[in-house]
């Protein structure tokens, strides 16, 4: 068998390594090398308990974006969430954003219920109507105490 040249082997190694890196960063890490394909929308919640950056945003169970940033609005102590919505998905002004849980102990995600208004939310706009996370413990204790 003919021995491969050192340069060829090294070249192959480098290419393989970079392909793996590309897979990890672009496909898994969502690193966007080719411009942003999303637009930003904010929403305020009373509580988002457990929602993480990177959680998915869904309409009818289909992922249409991600949670880009979670921070506290220090004026009125509300949780502000910045959503990165895929371009091409338009949200009506009266859409409702709610924090939901996948399964009982699953990840938190944001569910958007589309509205009927003819006006759409502009990039950078705000989803006015929101539903906070349902706190399982609160729910359970409420049930117990009400039945006393």
């Amino acid at each position, binding site marked *: 068998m003919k021995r491969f040249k050192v340069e060829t*082997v*090294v070249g*192959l*190694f480098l290419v393989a*390594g970079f392909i793996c890196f590309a897979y*990890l960063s672009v496909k898994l*890490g969502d*690193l966007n090398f080719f411009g942003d394909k999303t637009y930003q929308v904010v929403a305020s919640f009373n509580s988002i308990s457990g929602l993480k950056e990177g959680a998915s945003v869904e309409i009818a169970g289909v992922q249409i974006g991600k949670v880009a940033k979670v921070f506290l609005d220090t004026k009125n102590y509300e949780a502000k969430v910045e959503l990165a919505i895929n371009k091409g998905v338009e949200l009506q002004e009266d859409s409702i954003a709610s924090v939901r849980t996948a399964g009982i102990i699953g990840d938190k995600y944001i569910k958007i219920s589309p509205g009927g208004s003819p006006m759409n939310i502009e990039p950078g706009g705000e989803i006015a109507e929101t539903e906070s996370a349902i706190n399982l413990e609160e729910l359970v204790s409420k049930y117990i105490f009400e039945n006393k």
Partner: protein
Amino acid sequence: MLGFFEKIGDNFLYYLEQAGRMGVFLFNCLINAFKPPYKIGPIVRQIHFIGARSIFVIVFTGAFTGMVLALQGYYTLTKFGSEGFLGSAVALSLIRELGPVLASLMVIGRAGSAICAEIGIMRNSEQIDALECMAIDPHKYLMVPKFIAGVISVPLLTFVFDVVGIFGGYLVGVGLFGVNEGAFFNGMYSSVTWQDVHMGVVKSLIFGLLIIWISTSKGYFLHYERSGGFGAEGVSRNTTNAVVLSSVTILVWDYLLTAILL
């Protein structure tokens, strides 16, 4: 009693001196890396040795690491009925932790030991003195290509390890246990963020530097070893030391970097 304290002081000074020497050595190597002339040939040869020839070991260990992660993960996750997380569990533990650490340990075993022995033998047989007397800086001529190759190779090997591991996990999770393929990949895609990949990249870069630093300097300062760094036995003992020291250092730095980057 006095002898005891003297010994402690002696040890302390010895290790302090050793650390100082290694620090100066690293500084010299890094400075020289940026000084012209830049020669590609030696770097390519070192990448071949450190990187390309480690690829089989990396693919092998990566695949089995991913497989065992899926096995363990599946066993644990079924208890909570959340097999859907298998993909993200495997991918996250590989990308953040196991990929950089295990790939580095493999590189230490394969290349780090060889580098230390090579430099040690060169020191022993006056080859390094010969270089110096020829007015050739051994840092530039011997070390810089290794450093550059290490910093390039270890991250690339880590990426290969991660990807192969993920598909190893896929093989066991989806192929063997019948976890939903879509759940496996979608869970993975949505839970892994650039932050995680970034952490893996930073870790593997630093590990690459650490491995080469420790292996080369251990060999380079063979003649300063207190246990008598002479002859074949000196080289072999020193190589063992280098492997142990770099492995321990990698694990300690792994903790520190995780704490910093989280």
